[in-house]
């Protein structure tokens, strides 16, 4: 049965999966161009100096790729699933409601993680080509909160789409946007060094409310 649910997600995402991946490659391309340009025009020493000592970020285009991927996947997965009360179709399938919903969420999250992984490997390779492992480590550390923002962005978007009541959609949307903003607000390299685990744990708060939205839809009536 989960194979059938996986088939459904495949049908929804097979064509659109490549768009966030394309966005990642564009962002990585811009980062590569930035590194190469500085390396070529003002020299490798200045490139190192800029990145390591002047805290210049040549890869800031990666900041919103995870959030974009999260929004993209959530929209393409859940809008066809929820518009016109279509969620009833899912809830009538002979599969436990919770398993069905979280299976879909799991597929979407895996896609977001896959995109982030490509972005992380890509930026590590680009930075690693010009600079030593310290730079790679710091750059990855800097990108991690941006990638982490994909989790609440995805779950919050799913929540907004699935939630039957508009005031609730708005509140969850606003809460998600504000938290995502906190994760993408600073470009200072390594700024999240100590707080990253707490932010990561906070992201998990968004997992369970989806069950509440699903339950509300299933139960019907006012919220």
């Amino acid at each position, binding site marked *: *049965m989960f*194979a*059938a649910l996986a*088939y*459904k997600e495949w*049908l*929804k995402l097979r064509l659109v999966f490549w768009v966030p991946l394309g966005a990642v490659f564009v962002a990585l391309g811009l980062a590569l161009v930035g590194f190469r340009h500085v390396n070529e025009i003002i020299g490798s020493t200045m490139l190192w100096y800029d990145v390591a000592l002047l805290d210049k970020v040549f890869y800031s285009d990666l900041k919103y790729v995870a959030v974009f991927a999260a929004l993209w996947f959530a929209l393409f997965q859940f809008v*066809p*699933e929820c518009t*016109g*009360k*279509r969620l*009833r*179709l899912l*809830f*009538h*399938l*002979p*599969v*436990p409601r919770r398993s069905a919903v979280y299976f879909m969420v799991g597929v979407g999250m895996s896609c977001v993680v896959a995109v982030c992984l490509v972005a992380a490997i890509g930026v590590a390779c680009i930075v690693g080509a010009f600079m030593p492992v310290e730079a790679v480590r710091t750059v990855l550390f800097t990108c991690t909160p941006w990638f982490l923002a994909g989790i609440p962005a995805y779950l919050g978007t799913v929540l907004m789409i699935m939630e039957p009541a508009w005031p609730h959609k708005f509140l969850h949307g606003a809460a998600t946007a504000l938290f995502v903003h906190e994760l993408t607000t600073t470009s200072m390299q390594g700024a999240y060094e100590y707080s990253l685990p707490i932010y990561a744990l906070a992201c998990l708060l968004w997992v369970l409310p989806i069950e509440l939205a699903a339950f509300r*839809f*299933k*139960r*019907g*009536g*006012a919220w």
Partner: protein
Amino acid sequence: MESIISCRDLRHGYGEKVVLDGLNFDVEEGGIFGLLGKNGAGKTTTINILMGFLRPLSGECRVLGEPSHGIRPEVRRDIGLLHEKFIQYDFMSIKEIERFHSRFYPKWERGVFFDLVSRLEVSHDRRIGRMSCGQRSQVVLGLIMAQNPKLMILDDYSMGLDVGYRRLFLDFLQEYVRERGTTVLLTSHVVQDLDKLIDRMIIIQQGKVLVQGRKDEFLASFRQFRLPSSEALDRLGTGGPVVALERERSATSVFGYCGRAEMAAHLSGLGIPVEDMAGVPMEFEDAFIGITGKY
């Protein structure tokens, strides 16, 4: 006979508005059961409760022996739901939607689905979202039939269908139900179609049962009499054998579950001249309007 659906004292409302006011009914195994009522009578609310998408404020509704809001996945295999407006996954093609659904139902009959869908003369690669409402209705009916359920719940199957597709839909449904003995509960806003279709019915109004039982018995016992207007007739209200009244400019129709003699005696007793009282033959639609009223 075993009850497939059993609703006891269902009550529901939205804010101050009461929609269901102690609704009781049973649907027995086999045959087609019509849940009828005018707009706002509580049909959709009842169907939503039956489908498990709404929890009543009080009362209980059991489907295949399970509370309707918590039917186990294994039991859901035996229930075919046709959702209002024939909603389905628009992003899937005919082939894909069959492949998707077939994995969930052990008694899946691929042939039934493709037999029905092939008559549409559309490519099996056509997306559901790009089909007309009529074509979609056939696909959705095909899916429910291929599922081979014990119970079908069809919510307003006629919405958006022209007369041709409606007839097509009903022909397939009737044939299928006759062959397999499936129980069907349906609602429709096109009452004239139901005359030949349903065996039993419940008519609800303002959240309460108006009529419950076999359709043919209802049609046989429910009568319409027409009388010319008079002052005494203007004072007549429902009560006794008079179940409903329909006043026109020059004549008034009186409805009741009785013969001409009984009705004439009742009206005469109230001082209403009955010399020109005439029985009016009724189709099912006339009887439905007679008992529920035009407004």
